């Protein structure tokens, strides 16, 4: 009898939550709030929530309050698929903001596509994600572009001849950037002298770095996340390697300098925006973010914010709240003044925008140059 009760208690919550409130627009979001990618998921979530609070403070959309339901995917593909299905069928959300990792987007977006619910990914950079269907959008640039930007910068501005690559083999983002960088760098006459890998979660990289040191490169491309790059930079300097390190937007966090200390100074990474920008969209965002969360936003937070803003703008413009109407308005997004640049969604539903190269200098992020596609 006790067990029967227990089973009932466990099944009841599943059945609840089917009701839909009348004067509310519900948007769904899934993200890694726990698990090994949680730090990025939580960051994105902060950006999303901030955008939500702003719109509700100014009266919502079409006189209705906008609310958001965030579900956790624990960093697992099948959880992301289940969460998306739940958002669509149980909570009947009008649109979905996806998580960070491309892998999870590939598992979740087909579901949104088949239910004809618009899906906006803040930071899934794998080119295949938006090929899933015409309801899938993203507001970040794709892997090939970032790799390209860095290769261009390395050969033209830094005048590097020999580069080494240290990639995170567990992470599709890192592998994507590294592949494109290698191809482009060689096309521009450079030479890749070493291409080694690590796995996210490692703490010792000296074996790889000693190997790289023996090849004497002019620069090392490390397209990983700041969680590892801080330690890598430190160990690079400890081994006496003094060449510049380069990376992608995964570097963008205050924690990079806290972990890597002076070792990360003077290194370059490509990013969506610069905090030195005088663009009111950016300064306003940083000010508000600091006031709300008491920390500097990283690129994930900025992308989450932009994704939400673009979605909300489309909701405002759409004649009704059907998936089709929202999708059509999303596709029309043009020159949207986002934090991460002027965002235009092209016919492949990818964001077209320029990238900036940033140099790390203590807690400051020095703007070096803008590279347009």
């Amino acid at each position: 009898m006790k067990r029967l009760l227990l089973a009932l208690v466990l099944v009841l919550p599943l059945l609840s939550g089917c009701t839909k409130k009348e004067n509310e627009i519900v948007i769904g979001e899934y993200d890694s709030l726990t698990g090994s990618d949680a730090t990025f998921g939580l960051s994105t979530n902060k950006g999303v929530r901030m955008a939500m609070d702003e719109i509700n403070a100014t009266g919502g959309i079409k006189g209705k309050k906008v609310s958001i339901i965030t579900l956790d995917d624990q960093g697992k593909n099948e959880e992301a698929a289940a969460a998306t299905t739940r958002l669509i069928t149980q909570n009947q959300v009008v649109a979905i903001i996806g998580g960070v990792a491309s892998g999870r987007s590939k598992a979740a977006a087909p579901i949104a596509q088949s239910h004809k619910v618009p899906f906006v990914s803040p930071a899934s950079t794998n080119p295949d994600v938006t090929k899933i269907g015409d309801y899938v959008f993203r507001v970040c640039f794709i892997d090939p572009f970032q790799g390209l930007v860095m290769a261009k910068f390395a050969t033209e501005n830094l005048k590097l001849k020999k580069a080494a690559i240290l990639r995170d083999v567990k992470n599709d983002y890192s592998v994507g950037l590294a592949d494109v960088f290698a191809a482009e760098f060689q096309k521009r006459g450079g030479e890749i002298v070493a291409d080694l890998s690590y796995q996210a979660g490692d703490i010792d990289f000296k074996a790889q770095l000693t190997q790289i040191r023996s090849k004497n490169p002019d620069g090392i491309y490390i397209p990983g996340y700041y969680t590892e790059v801080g330690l890598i930079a430190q160990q690079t300097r400890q081994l006496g390697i003094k060449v510049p390190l380069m990376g992608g937007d995964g570097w963008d966090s205050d924690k990079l300098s806290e972990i890597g200390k002076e070792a990360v100074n003077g290194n370059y990474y490509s990013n969506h925006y610069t905090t030195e920008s005088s663009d009111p969209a950016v300064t306003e965002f940083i000010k508000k973010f600091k006031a709300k969360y008491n920390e500097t936003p990283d690129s994930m937070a900025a992308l989450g914010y932009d994704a939400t803003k673009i979605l909300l703008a489309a909701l405002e413009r759409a004649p009704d709240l059907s998936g089709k109407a929202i999708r059509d308005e999303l596709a029309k997004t043009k020159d949207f003044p986002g934090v991460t640049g002027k965002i235009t969604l092209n016919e492949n539903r990818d964001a077209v925008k320029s990238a900036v190269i940033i140099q790390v200098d203590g807690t400051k992020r020095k703007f070096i140059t803008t590279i347009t596609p």
Partner: protein
Amino acid sequence: MKFLKAPLLAIIALAALGLIFNFGLNAYFQLILLFAAVNCLMSMSLNLVNGYTGQFSLGHAGFMALGAYFSAYANTHWDLLPESVQAVEYFIYALGGGLLAAFAGLLVGLPSLRLKGDYLAIVTLGFGEIIRVALLNMDFLGGPRGYSGIPGFGSFLFSFIFASVWLVICFFTIWRVMHSTYGRGFLSVREDEIAAEAMGINTTSMKVRAFVLSSFFAGVAGSLFAHFTNFINPSSFTFLQSVNAVIMVVLGGMGSMTGSIVAAIFITVLPEALRPLQDLTGVDLRMVIYSLSLILVMILRPQGLFGDLELSDMWRKYVRRSS
């Protein structure tokens, strides 16, 4: 043909159930049901090794990965049969994935099953990790990007029937094996290896047989998983996935087929059932509750939910007690 009666009846019953679910449930519950079916296959097959034979395998996810990748590759690259009989083709590929996993199980099992207890656990864990690392580095399988665009069944009903067929095959195969001479051999290995050996049972060969059969169904489970999610990447097949399978077996009761099924459904549903809690607390406490309840179940009911009894035994006991 008498021996086919029960399985056929089971398939028909499950198909009828599927038809009801097809109209009675929304897509969310349907998806959870499909994941539960995959987990049932995983736990039933692992039960053969961990529950019945008393060996300790921590690498089940590796075999699942092999089946999943084989099916994914076969379905996107080969075209054996015409469109109209696609389900048959899926079935053949699932069989192929299972056979590949079984072969890997043989390769792993032959040398390592001489080891005992925790050492065996570590070796199987090691093999599971090796398979995952290898998959990460195979570019033609997508590496960390994974394998997307795996064709699915299109509708829940077909998926469910396909899963049911495999569930029934798995259940009855293991059931029949356990009630044959081999099954007695497996049990004797679990109860007392030395005594079994003294009785003339080749214990290593028994263990390998159990292991190979178990790997086969893990491969099939992987194949189903690939069809249901339409996307796989190596991070779906980590050490934690293997642990999850072991948890299901122990929770259900070592050596109880129906126990494994109930536990697999329970473990799949619990995290989903706890989702609404997140609205109340603001943070995701699901895994905290999950792990706490795991510890509590182990302490309060160490033999698992069912012990080594089956659902039918429990029912009989219940009837006897109440009369």
